[in-house]
């Protein structure tokens, strides 16, 4: 019962907004803001289901490849750097600079070095999302309580187990936060690189729809990416709740 009410509450505003959009745009003659009715019809035509297969899947493929490389490389490098004060201190300004650099600014450089292919797009996604993962991993590993570190040292917990049961879980709240920031950055990077390389993918699709004045099609691509981003965030929430259950519950007030 309570659950149903929460769902209803959560849906109220989106439904209201969609309703308003539908009503306001119903008689629209502006080519830039076609009636929502038209967009919905177009959406079904375009995306169900050939569009999903031919256009969305390549986008998701690039995203997944780049994002997972960024996560694995970011965590591995982060753990290695956190273990070495001298190297980490030496690299810190460079890493902060690279993180601050808007990743999109580098896309022209990526294109001139790697061309217009999939490699370039994946590299751009990696570059966009690796920094928050890497820097948060370093912080997280460093932040593991010194008393915990002393304990596992005294009890001679072997290296591999120390990494698996102590360092990584201890750093996981920070790592997950970095990975979440990386999710948004990865999606931006994949769409932008698709737009400028006119390959397959949702970014390329929406850009070419815009160039050929097929604005309903352009809007469907935007809506689709909204759904994709929203779904990925939901999945991420669930994953976070599972892996960080101890962390979330620890911070709840005792019952």
């Amino acid at each position: 019962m309570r659950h149903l009410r929460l769902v209803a509450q959560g849906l109220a505003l989106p439904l209201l907004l969609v309703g308003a959009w539908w009503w306001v745009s119903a008689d629209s003659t502006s080519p830039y803001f076609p009636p929502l009715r038209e967009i919905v019809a177009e959406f079904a035509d375009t995306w169900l289901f050939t569009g999903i297969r031919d256009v969305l899947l390549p986008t998701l493929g690039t995203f997944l490849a780049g994002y997972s490389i960024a996560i694995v490389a970011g965590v591995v490098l982060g753990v290695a750097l956190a273990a070495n004060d001298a190297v980490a201190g030496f690299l810190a300004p460079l890493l902060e600079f690279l993180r601050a650099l808007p990743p999109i600014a580098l896309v022209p450089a990526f294109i001139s070095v790697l061309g217009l292919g999939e490699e370039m797009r994946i590299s751009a996604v990696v570059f966009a999302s690796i920094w928050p993962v890497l820097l948060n991993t370093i912080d997280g590993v460093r932040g593991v309580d010194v008393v915990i570190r002393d304990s596992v040292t005294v009890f001679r917990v072997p290296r591999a187990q120390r990494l698996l049961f102590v360092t990584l879980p201890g750093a996981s709240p920070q790592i997950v936060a970095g990975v979440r920031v990386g999710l948004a950055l990865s999606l931006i990077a994949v769409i932008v690189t698709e737009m400028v390389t006119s390959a397959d993918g949702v970014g390329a699709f929406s850009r070419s729809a815009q160039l050929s004045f097929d604005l309903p099609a352009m809007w469907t691509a935007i809506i689709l990416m909204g759904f994709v981003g929203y779904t990925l965030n939901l999945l991420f929430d669930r994953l976070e709740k599972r892996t960080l259950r101890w962390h979330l519950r620890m911070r709840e007030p005792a019952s």
Partner: protein
Amino acid sequence: MASAHARTGVVTAEAAKRAAPDVDAHVHVDRLHHVFGRGAAARTVLGSVDFTVARGEHVSVVGPSGSGKTTVLRCVAGLLTPTSGQVRLDGAPVAGPPESLAVVFQDYSRSLLPWLTVRSNVALPLRGKGIPAPHRRERAAEALAAVGLKDSLHQYPWQLSGGMQQRVAIARALAYRPEVLLMDEPFASVDAQTRSDLEDLVLRLKRVYAMTVIAVTHDIDEAVYLSDRVVVLSGHPAEVVESVPIDLGADRDQLTTKSDPRFARLRARVLRAVRH
């Protein structure tokens, strides 16, 4: 025949040489000297701290707060290399955490891993000992039962009270089956009732698990009540001012022992040494 005699002779001489400094010392804290920081910021915390602990003995180290008790324990645990001097375990110098030495840390609640259940916390140190998983779990459960926590195996440390967390830290040390147990102000931050319960728990456990114990405390009653000997540390820089044998026998309890006139005398003697 002659060669056999010669060999025996050599062995005996070597054994004698090894045992020479202090025949039955299990732990020898040998002229420990430590300076924190360098240059203008240098602070000599340990002057020359020197004492021995026999196998199976329970020694309490008392001294004012900030006098360097934790620093001494960290040297014994191999977590800190002293500026000079050394700690020897069975005659062998300590360099890094020794095998079969366990510590109950002063910040016990921070020493437990919040992402592991109580049982996994207790079992984690056994991973380095090559014990198979079912045995690790069994041993952990056994140690937790010994400290009265057999119903909390699957809880997380942060779901427990301070006193219970302290028992988990003790269980973790016991499951490790150490020859030497170090405790740093183990009962400093629990309420009075929990504290005397935990003191009696330690007395009981000592009978079951034969261990050499070095416990740091600033509570003189507790030191006298629990130990075979109390080592009094002075501060700034730390030196041993007195080593008081506590001849109260092995059977002690809160009521009779603490009202024993000998207890009062020993307590007064330690107190005078602390204030000297």
